[in-house]
């Protein structure tokens, strides 16, 4: 039998048994659509997290005082012993490295912030003008801290959106004075609302110049140095430069911990990718269920069509002819179901995308290829038994039973 004729024959069967065809298309379609939709949700979540990390700052390297043997995932919870403090001089020395674009030393403390009779306990950050670019902060009003020598400071500050509304109660905060501890600062800028990002809610902080924070908290020691490498490729160079420079300055002792955003990001990336694969695999179970349905429907079909099969054998069809007919039929159905499923999955993905516009839902390429292949694979696999049964039918008995 010629291949074109086998295809034509199978096509006639698929068209001839409408209800059965629709049922199988539906089962296969749901299976494939589930794999595509679920894996695109997983992939969307992964991209979302990756982007969130990106918004923290690109090519970020964080320098912590103290040498820590155990490394945690979150920069905020790493605590190491501090044999010697990190100082402003250490930070300024890092500028020697050609791999570093900019850096911002950071001091963090809690301060009693007061405007007239209102007061509020908030986190107070001491840093430099470069913090804004490194952390990708945006201003709602006014300016960030003015640039200049970090060892000297002006009495100015930048406040978070919530701090501004709570303390100034409807009045414009810009240009007004507030008091932190026993020092006075003029508000030169208000941060745009950004919400939480890794430990700090930027809506609820007050940022003052580094030297002012040192005086306020009566310390020389830096909490962190945030460093931005010139490019992704330069992150490793920046890291080794930082370790080198600080070892020199600390008499040959390695007393800092340097972590890169990349390392943290890579961990998240791996976890979420594994998660996507896992849920995609779960959805693929529905494909196996669809395969079993195909087997059942095919077995019923062999029983229903035993006259026809007997006739075909009487007319000279070999066992191989009959088996091939059934396989072709199964592949046609699976192919149709897979196309339907891809279309439905894509629609579902667009629909979910409308509900959660901030998450970039996209089906990963492996799911788009693997789902239809799995569908066709299961269809062929599960039609082996029915096809063999059909090929073995005895033509005399198949024709005689009415």
């Amino acid at each position: 039998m010629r291949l074109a004729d086998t295809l034509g024959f199978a096509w006639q069967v698929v068209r001839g048994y409408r209800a059965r065809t629709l049922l199988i298309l539906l089962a296969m379609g749901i299976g494939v659509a589930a794999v595509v939709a679920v894996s695109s949700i997983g992939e969307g979540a992964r991209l979302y997290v990756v982007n969130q990390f990106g918004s923290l700052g690109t090519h970020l390297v964080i320098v912590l005082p103290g040498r820590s043997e155990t490394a945690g995932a979150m920069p905020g919870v790493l605590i190491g012993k501090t044999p010697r403090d990190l100082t402003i001089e250490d930070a300024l020395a890092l500028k020697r490295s050609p791999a570093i674009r900019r850096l911002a030393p950071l001091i963090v403390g809690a301060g009693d912030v007061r405007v007239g009779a209102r007061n509020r306990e908030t986190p107070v950050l001491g840093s430099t003008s470069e913090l804004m670019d490194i952390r990708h902060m945006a201003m709602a009003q006014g300016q960030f801290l003015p640039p200049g020598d970090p060892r000297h400071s002006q009495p100015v500050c930048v406040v978070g959106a919530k701090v501004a509304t709570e303390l100034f109660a409807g009045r414009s905060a810009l240009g007004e004075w507030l008091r932190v501890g026993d020092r006075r600062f003029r508000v030169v800028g208000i941060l745009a609302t950004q919400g939480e990002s890794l430990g700090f809610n930027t809506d609820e902080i007050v940022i003052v110049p580094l030297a002012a924070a040192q005086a306020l908290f009566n310390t020389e020691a830096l909490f962190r140095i945030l460093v931005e490498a010139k490019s992704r490729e330069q992150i490793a160079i920046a890291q080794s430069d930082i370790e080198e420079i600080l070892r020199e300055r600390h008499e040959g002792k390695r007393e800092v911990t340097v972590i890169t955003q990349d390392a943290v990001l890579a961990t998240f990336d791996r976890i979420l990718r594994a998660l996507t694969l896992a849920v995609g695999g779960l959805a693929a179970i529905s494909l196996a269920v669809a395969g079993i349905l195909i087997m059942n429907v095919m077995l019923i079909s062999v029983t229903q069509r035993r006259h026809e099969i007997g006739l075909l054998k009487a007319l000279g069809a070999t066992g191989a002819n009959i088996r091939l007919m059934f396989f072709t039929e199964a592949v046609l159905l699976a192919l149709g179901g897979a196309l339907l499923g891809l279309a439905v999955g894509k629609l579902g993905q667009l629909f979910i995308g409308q509900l959660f516009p901030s998450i970039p839902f996209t089906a990963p390429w492996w799911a788009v290829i693997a789902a239809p292949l799995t569908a066709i694979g299961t269809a062929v696999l599960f039609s082996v038994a029915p096809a063999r049964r059909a090929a073995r039918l005895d033509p005399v008995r198949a024709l005689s039973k009415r």
Partner: protein
Amino acid sequence: MIRLSGIERVFRVGEEEVHALRGIELEIARGEYLSLMGPSGSGKSTLLNVIGLLDRPNAGRYELDGRDVTGLDDDELSRARREKMGFVFQFFHLVARLTAAQNIELPMVLAGIEPGERKQRLARLLSAYGLEARAHHRPDQLSGGQCQRVAIARAMSMGPSVILADEPTGNLDRHTGQEVMAVLERVHHGGGSVVLVTHDPEIGARAQRRLRMVDGAIVGDERG
């Protein structure tokens, strides 16, 4: 053309053994028109199935066109049926979703004959059996007589050595039955061999050679 010797066919029905065919000795020459008659259960259909290579005898020897076909496997039997046998059944056995033309074409499709060649043979068969106007109708749109004509055209499509007809008029009224017999007899007049199973004495009497079967054995062989 066909030589059967010592053919036995035994069916097991539960514990019992049923001898459907006992010691059949039969020769059929090319171009013969032969009817097989007998009460139901006499083994005439089983004999037809054995001749048609649909069923295998338990013992004996079957020579078809000078070749021993007793020991062929399933696929070899399929190919032999395709080349040598044309079947006509009581219940027509047309594929319901295919048109008359597609049904007639089916054996040629299974044999893998080129579409061009198929089209030519199909056109000849449609005109020979007066089915041109009905070529694109499905079986449920055809009368019983037309269905059986389609079946005969299908049986003839591969140019078989013999046409085997099992009660071809059994499902038709008298008049249509006569028409179908006329069509079958035209095949015979054209030089074809026809083996006909029937329990209708009037139909059976039309054949030049008439075999009678009782209890799986041939008990009468009349000619002329």
